[in-house]
């Protein structure tokens, strides 16, 4: 893969991201409602002059194009603005929230892969067996279940019913948090050798990542199964077997590696979906991540936060697509970029 390709792909992201910010900016401002009115709530004692004063202090009295250019200029200078709702720099808010969302997303991804790949492989090599039938049924159910429903049911079973796992938060408040290095609690507590925190973080992570990862696992499992079925029919697999290689080696090294290409695409594209799904799962599990921040910011017309987070989402999406392309070349040398 050439550096030129990479450079071109990077350049392509600029108009994409610009376009997205423009759409989001217009949508936010076209939506009826007003941040100051929302902020002041139903307090009926506020005079029109005070409302105007607050609007002025927040720069909301400026014409829209000026506000947009100001926002873009800020981004270029590395200044993401100040949240209207919290009054703190957007950058700090995002820096505070992003690790939580990232940890949940990665955990959900891990959960889905741990379920999907072995299940997909087994279903493919034992085609039409009971294992295949059951996993097909389970994955069908998994794809059809909305994640918020699954989240609530998991809470009802494991938290309310059995009392095994907590129904929310990242760490609980009985445990001392490890010092922040990466912001990912699993990593930070490992680094600090704080086993208590590690255990607590894992327990808190399990249900939300299952709720978020399970629907994706179902999808990934189906893709893995069908592409495995394609691959095992290929001549080189027959050849590998004829060479007398162990079946496990044939399946894992020769078949799975090639079968993973479509799976990787699906996973990469679903990183975006996972980030979106976070918004609901984070709310249900009181997970202090980016998803909750975005939802609350939309609700309270906190323009700078919405714009910055959407841009971040867009960049992630673009980056994940790029990453998928890069991983292809590793897995299949024939793919030239």
């Amino acid at each position: 893969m050439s550096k030129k390709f990479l450079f071109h792909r990077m350049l392509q992201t600029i108009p994409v991201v610009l376009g997205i910010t423009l759409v989001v900016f217009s949508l936010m401002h076209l939506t009826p409602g007003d941040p100051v009115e929302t902020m002041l709530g139903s307090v009926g004692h506020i005079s029109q002059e005070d409302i105007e004063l607050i609007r002025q202090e927040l720069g909301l009295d400026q014409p829209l194009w000026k506000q947009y250019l100001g926002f873009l200029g800020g981004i270029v200078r590395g200044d993401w603005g100040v949240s209207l709702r919290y009054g703190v720099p957007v950058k700090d808010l995002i820096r505070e929230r992003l690790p939580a969302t990232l940890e949940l997303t990665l955990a959900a991804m891990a959960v889905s892969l741990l379920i999907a790949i072995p299940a997909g492989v087994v279903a493919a090599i034992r085609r039409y067996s009971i294992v295949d039938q059951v996993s097909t049924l389970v994955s069908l159910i998994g794809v059809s279940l909305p994640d918020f429903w699954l989240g609530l049911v998991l809470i009802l079973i494991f938290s309310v019913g059995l009392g095994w796992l907590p129904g929310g938060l990242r760490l609980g408040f009985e445990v001392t948090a490890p010092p922040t290095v990466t912001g990912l609690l699993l990593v930070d507590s490992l680094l600090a050798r704080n086993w208590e925190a590690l255990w607590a973080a894992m327990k808190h992570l399990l249900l939300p990542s299952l709720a978020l990862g399970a629907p994706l696992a179902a999808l990934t499992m189906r893709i893995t199964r069908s592409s495995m079925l394609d691959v095992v029919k290929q001549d080189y697999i027959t050849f590998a077997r004829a060479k007398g290689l162990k079946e496990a080696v044939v399946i894992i090294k020769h078949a799975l590696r090639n079968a993973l290409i479509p799976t990787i695409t699906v996973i990469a594209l679903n990183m975006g979906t996972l980030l979106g799904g976070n918004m609901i799962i984070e709310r249900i599990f009181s997970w202090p991540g980016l998803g909750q921040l975005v939802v609350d910011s939309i609700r309270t017309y906190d323009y700078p936060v919405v714009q910055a987070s959407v841009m971040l989402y867009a960049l992630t999406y673009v980056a994940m697509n790029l990453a998928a392309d890069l991983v292809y070349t590793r897995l299949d040398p024939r793919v030239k970029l």
Partner: protein
Amino acid sequence: MKKGITAVVLVLLLSGLVCAKTLVIGFDDDLVTLDPADFSHRQTEAMLRQVYEGLSTYTPDREIVPELALSITAIEPTLYEIKVRPGVKFHDGSPLTAEDVAFSINRLVKEGAMAGRTSQRRGLMGPTKGAVAVDEYTVHVELANPWPLFPRFIPWQMIVPKSVGDSYIDKPVGTGPFVFEEWVRDSHFSVVRNPEYWGDPPKVDRVVFRVIGDESARVSALRSGEVDIATFIPVHEISSLENHPEIDVVSVLGTRSYFLEMNVNKPPFNDIRVRQAMNHAVDMDTIINVIYEGRATRIPFILSPQAFAYHDGLPMFDYDPEKARRLLAEAGYPNGFSFELDTVDAHRARAEIYQAMLAEVGIDVKIRTWPTWGAVREAWMQMKDKPVAEQRDAFLNDWGNASLDPFDILIPKFHSDHRGLGRGNFSGFADPEVDRLLEASLESDNNEERLMLFRQAQEIIHAQVPMVFEFVAHEIYGVRSRVKNWRPSPDSRIHLKEVELAH
């Protein structure tokens, strides 16, 4: 050896945690700020009030009692004298003085006092111009014009140390029964017991407010015992929670009144018989039972039964569709009419019940909804240059009367200055006598007199029927039985000084 010591310390710490009494409260929304001068948000107030105190405060019974002030007296109509409680310390150890109180008041009313921003709570200070410390424990507050309501508004504000300067507060230091511990946005806000509290120190060691925005998840956390108190229990969960052996459902009459405002300047609602017919055509008890499962209290007018000057002599309209049809026929609408009912999404279900009930008497309702009140206002703005008589037909609405004093509901709703797109008189009601009575109430600091003025005003307005009068909803909490001595407050504050945990 080192490992052994660590283990012992760990065990001690753990057992300490087990013995420490932590009360966990499941809240529906996060704080918006840690600065007590920068919000108008009930949840933020409920949490910050654990750390900060006011000069005076409201009890759950809605009485105003002194807190950091010993007395607040008017020495002139535009000058109040505040005597500050001596011997109180902020959580950083510095003593509370008149300087801090004057600083806190000036911070609320001065433009750009919080790192360039102006307090959102300035409106709650009325015509307050500023405050000065006259001696160590005496503050003088100057008003631009007489405002007898000053002592009723002071309980809403919190006192901060003057060391805050012109900065924005991100680490709260107050005088309250609890000391701020940490705030993780959208996760939790926690405070610990202040052993040096000037009053009786609280009985729980630690309080954690957990943010659980999703109501089902909040109820689940209550069921599993992860939270001890959960706020805003949805009505459909009540009966199953009531059957739980360790959970009590408690409720309190809220401060929010519900009603439908009819534009009295525009046909058909300019005819009082039509407005009466509307009141007779709607079966309010059914609405209360269907939407609120009985957790609402019907009212004859718009004041809550616990409000100051509540008029219990006003008659309630009974459900009588026959009478409604007769009144409509008398008013010249024997076949009914059609009108547009504006509202916000949150009231959609209620609007649809209206639609069905009014159809019974031949009235056709077209519902128009917007996501927020701000959106409704924006839609109406396009009509702002037209006279009130050509604007909206009717608005299904509610109004929070947090002070439970009629002035901040009767004035915005019925004073003629607030018609049109002002802050609240959406029925366009105007009556010179009502205006006079309401204005007189603002200038009086005599409770007897205010009571009479408000009662007279209510009688005149009620007789004109500018609204379909509805109810006050209850606020519902779920409480684990290990929580002792807690009861909800109508203003959504959470009073925790007396609360104990059984085990």
